[in-house]
Each structure stands twice: as structure tokens, then as C-alpha cells.
């Protein structure tokens, strides 16, 4: 996965060519992963052809609610985002790190090798590309490189899609992460549905992308095709369901550590952790050591964890954040504020998943706005601990 500075579609393909393209990826050894319908939602799973895509379906989303709906056409990518994100492949929810076996006096330790599955990710959206870049910074962007993340991301092929519509919970426009893809892909498509016309405008983002595209029938893009992309993206921006005023946001949250709003949110929040689990940038994990009954075999596992669990902040005899208030505050402050201090960018890409998939509809955009509205500067105890 590498990006060139190609900001314009250069070729145009039809659905048959897209099927051929998926075939090329498979023949090059990729496991092709894309959107498909499962249990009344659009999830990411293995696909074979474009027939597996959610053809003619869309998703209607709002805080705490997600429903599939039929569209009036055969759009392949006419939905927004589902509950899954690509982190389930790049940062699996449960991963064995190593195992150790004892045989008499012999002890043998076997670390898990980097898994050599090459995946092609189909229909990655702009916010998701940004989320992948953010997680890559966490896992492989410093001197401490997570070897499994490294292998998984290095070997991935990314076929991005410009969003042709936005959902009610989307706010990528205000986070500057979409809806137009701006790098980090091998190929990027824009789906054009206009009467009988059903085509895909293709931008090339890498050499391997160009190679793969070269194996299928395509025609050259015209100037009006480029305008078509601009129009589609502009229309998507206009549909954006939510927004966040990001001005001064890190300091805003720091200043409002003692805002009474946090107590109100805590009355509604279930501390269920769904928001962090669905968030494509949340990277926290817990490490568990397990032994078998004989004691001759032990394994170390890494699992997704969340700042909403009590165990997360357990240190030598107690929890640092035992109240739900402090846990919600930690989550939002990290996403929007302290992430900047830690990684030099926002931890939120505005995908809206935490809003849709919060079982009780707690909305990060609404809560930021509420904090802004009710700002109270409590200069006397700016960092009251443990509350």
C-alpha cells in the first residue's frame, strides 16, 4: 500500500471489469474481503464476486439505530458504513502472541510468526483510510514495531471507494478525513449511476494498483468524468448528518474536566464499551496468560480491551477510573484531545460508528457541543483525580 499524488480518475471500468479485477486479485493470492449482508447489516467478510456485495441496498443510520433499506437501483456501494471496521483484520480482536510448552526439564517457547495471508480490502472509505493510517502510527509508527500489524498492513491491497452518500451519523467533513479519498489506497473507485449508465471511475494510487487495473478492460477517463467525481463528493458533503466544531478542542476538554455535563452523560452511559470496540482507531488491548490443567502448556493472548472496563485502569489494588463519568470522559478526551498530544493528530475520523452502535444513542458530536455550550472553567481544581 503506497500512495502517489494522483487526485484524478484516469480510467473507467464497468461492473464486469470490476469482477475481473476481483478475479485478478484472487489469482495473485489475495483473500478478497468486502462488504456483504449478514444478520441485517453490511459487514466485512470474504467475497468472491460483485454478486456478494450489498447490491441495491443501503443503510439508514441514526444514534443507536441501524436499518437496511432497499434502494431503487443496483448500486454496489450505495450504503455508508457497517458495524465492522478493517481493524478486525489488521488488529484482530484475539491474537495469540506466543506459547510455551514444558516437557520434563525442556521448555520450548514459540512466538507466533507474522501471518502470511494477503488480504485485499474492497470498498474502503476515506474515513477508514485515515483510521488505518492512525492505527499504523500507533502500531508501527515508532521504534517499537508490532510485527503482526506490520505484516498484515504491508501485505494488504486497498481498493477504496469515494462515498456517494453520507449517513446521518457521519461527520468526516468536519474532521477533514473525507468523504473524498486522498491517499493511502492502491485503487480508488467512484460509482456512477445515472439512468442506464453504471460505471466506476478509477484513480490509481500505487504501482501495484496500476498493474492490477491493467489486467482488466477499461477506457480512458474524460474531463467530464473528473467533474462527475467532484459533483458526487460535493453532494455527499452536503448530506453529512453531523458535524463537530474542532476549534481548540483539546484545550476545551482539558478546561472542562469538571463540567457537570460529564455527570449527565454518566447517567445514560452503560459503560458497555461498544463505542470503543466499533471505533476504527481504538487500539487498546489486554494481555492474558493462560495455562492448561497440567501446567505443561501456557499461552499469552492479546484481546481488544476498552477504557470503559474496570480492569483497564486497575493498578496495584484499585481502579483509577471507577466511575462511568471518568471513563466516558477518558474516552472522549482521548479521541478528540489527548490523541493530538500523543500522536500529533485527532483520534477521531468522524465515521459515526460510536454514535450508531451505542445501544443508548450517546452521541460524541452532541456531547462535545454540550460541553462547549456549558463551559465552566473550574480554575481551582483543573485535574481532580479519580472522580
Amino acid at each position, binding site marked *: 500500500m503506497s500512495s502517489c499524488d494522483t487526485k484524478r480518475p484516469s480510467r473507467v471500468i464497468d461492473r464486469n471489469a470490476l469482477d475481473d479485477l476481483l478475479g485478478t486479485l484472487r489469482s495473485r493470492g489475495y483473500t478478497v474481503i468486502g462488504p456483504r449482508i*449478514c*444478520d*441485517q*447489516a453490511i*459487514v466485512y467478510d470474504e467475497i468472491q464476486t460483485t454478486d456478494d456485495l450489498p447490491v441495491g441496498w443501503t443503510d439508514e443510520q441514526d444514534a*443507536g*439505530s*441501524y*436499518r437496511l433499506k432497499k434502494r431503487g437501483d443496483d448500486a454496489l456501494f450505495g450504503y455508508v458504513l457497517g*458495524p*465492522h471496521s478493517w481493524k*478486525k483484520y489488521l488488529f484482530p*480482536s*484475539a491474537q495469540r502472541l506466543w506459547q510455551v510448552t514444558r516437557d520434563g526439564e525442556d521448555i520450548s517457547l514459540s512466538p507466533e510468526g507474522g501471518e502470511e495471508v494477503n488480504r485485499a480490502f474492497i470498498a474502503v472509505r476515506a474515513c477508514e483510510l485515515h483510521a488505518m493510517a492512525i492505527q499504523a502510527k500507533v502500531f508501527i509508527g515508532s521504534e517499537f514495531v508490532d510485527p503482526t500489524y506490520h505484516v498484515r498492513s504491508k501485505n494488504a491491497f486497498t481498493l477504496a471507494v469515494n462515498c456517494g452518500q453520507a449517513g446521518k451519523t457521519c461527520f468526516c467533513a468536519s474532521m477533514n478525513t473525507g468523504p473524498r479519498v486522498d491517499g493511502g489506497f492502491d485503487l480508488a473507485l467512484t460509482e456512477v449511476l445515472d439512468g442506464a449508465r453504471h460505471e466506476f471511475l478509477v484513480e490509481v494510487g500505487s504501482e501495484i494498483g496500476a498493474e492490477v487495473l491493467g489486467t482488466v478492460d477499461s477506457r480512458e477517463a474524460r474531463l467530464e468524468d473528473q467533474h462527475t467525481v467532484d459533483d458526487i463528493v460535493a453532494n455527499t458533503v452536503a448530506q453529512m448528518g453531523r458535524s463537530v466544531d474542532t476549534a481548540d478542542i483539546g484545550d476545551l476538554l482539558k478546561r472542562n474536566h469538571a463540567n457537570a455535563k460529564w455527570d449527565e452523560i454518566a*447517567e*445514560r*452511559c*452503560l*459503560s*458497555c*464499551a*461498544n463505542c470503543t*470496540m*466499533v471505533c476504527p482507531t481504538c487500539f487498546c488491548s489486554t494481555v*492474558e*496468560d*493462560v*495455562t*492448561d*490443567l*497440567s*501446567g505443561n502448556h501456557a499461552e499469552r493472548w492479546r*484481546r*481488544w480491551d*476498552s477504557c*470503559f*472496563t*474496570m*480492569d483497564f485502569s486497575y493498578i496495584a489494588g484499585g481502579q483509577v477510573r*471507577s*466511575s*462511568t463519568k471518568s471513563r466516558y470522559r477518558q474516552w472522549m478526551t482521548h479521541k478528540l484531545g489527548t490523541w493530538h498530544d500523543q500522536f500529533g493528530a485527532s483520534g477521531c475520523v468522524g465515521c459515526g460508528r460510536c454514535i*450508531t*452502535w*451505542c*445501544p*443508548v*444513542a450517546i452521541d460524541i458530536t452532541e456531547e462535545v457541543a454540550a460541553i462547549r455550550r456549558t463551559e465552566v472553567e473550574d480554575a481551582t481544581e483543573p485535574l481532580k483525580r479519580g472522580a
Partner: protein
Amino acid sequence: MGRKDKPKLAVWKFASCDGCQLSLLDCEDQLLDIAGAVEIAYFPEATKAVQPGPYDLSLVEGSITTPHDAERIHQIRRDSKFLVTIGACATAGGIQALRNFKDVREFARIVYASPQFIDALNKSTPIADHVKVDFELRGCPVNKKQLIEVLSAFLHERKPNVPTHSVCVECKRQSIVCVMVAHGTPCLGPVTQAGCGAICPAYCRGCYACFGPKETPNVAALGCWWHDELDVPYRDVVRALRTYNAVAPPFEKESVRNEH
């Protein structure tokens, strides 16, 4: 480890359906390993052989529902180095704790021909209300993987990996589509402790809370949401909370509050 070094295991039964003990017998592949790792000294469900105490580890199933059992549990505690309660009956009073909301003598009069011979306490209570318990393993029934995890942890003197967070975390780790958000199905997962592997959501059902309240459960907020957004009548919120863990304090409090 020589055989004489093996820790002695006892399995006790109080008011219960035997389902949790059966989970132990259901450990098929690992049953021989268990028998190899511990000496089964008292387990009437599995073997007639009975060895006297003291025992290194007692697994206790069932709740306290009679004056006789309220005495018996103290002797078991005295005979046990470690005492682990297994299942919703032992950890929360079980389904039989539904009696706690009524007068048990009334039931006895209706059910039994000679109710004067029934010597039952008015309330079904968890073991921890009577004696000190070293670890509580939740579930109705317990999950056998968790049971083996507790036994392994005991044998190797480490903390068991038994998380107390929500079922939602298990859902999401397994990529299960949320039934509440995507289908509008009421689900107790956000207030329920993990451990089952999110079996019900995996089959597109709401969670029934077999594993009882999770850490810091916000049952009131979930009940409100069910009522206001999912059109569940308060009467059904009460019913959903009154199953296997009906008198676990966070569930009892909320079901009582919603009764009116």
C-alpha cells in the same frame, strides 16, 4: 506431581438443578485431565466414593433455601481451603429466588398436599450471604471453558481470567451484529457480565442476563431505553430482570423500581 500430592476436590450441591455440576461432567475432552490433576474426593453426581475432608477446593452449586442448608454450608466452609461458588443459584440465589418477592408459605399451600412438612426459608440466598467465598463463577449454567479456567488458575496459583465487563465486548470481539441497534431487539447484554460467549446475540436473540450484572451496571438507563425507544412495557422490563439472577442487587433494585 505424584498422586498423593494432588489437591482434593469436593463438589457440593444446594438448591439447584445440577446443571452446573453437569457442566463439569460435560468437559469431555478435559475430564481425564481434570481427574489427572485433582483427586475427586467428594462428587456424588459423578462417583459414590466419598473421602472425608478437609478439601483443598470445594465447588459449591446451589442457593441456601432451608434452615438445614444454612447450617450445612458452614461445615463445608470449615472443611475447605478454597471455596468457589458456581452458577447463578450459588452466586445470586437463582431462579428460585423469585420467591423472595412473595410469601413462600403461600406457594407451599398451593403446591403441597401437606405444607406443614415443608421447612423452607422465606428467601433463597447466595452462598456468599452465609460464608466467605473465595471466588464466584457466574452463569446459568456456568461456561465450561470458564470452569476449566478457574480450576487451572487454582492449580497453578494464578488469578483466573474471568472478566467482569459487558457481554457487548464479547459480541464485538466476535464481529456479531448488535441485535438491539440493527434489529430493535431488547438485549440485556450491556448490563450483563460476559462469560457465555454472547451465544444469544450470535443467534440474533437478545441477551437474557444468565451471567448476572456486570461491573458498574447501569440497569436504570437500559430499562428506560427499552421502554422509551423499544416500546417495551415496564411490566416486561421487570420480567426480563426477574430470571436466574432476579435478586442480584442491581437487577432486584431496578425490577422493584419498575414494578409500579
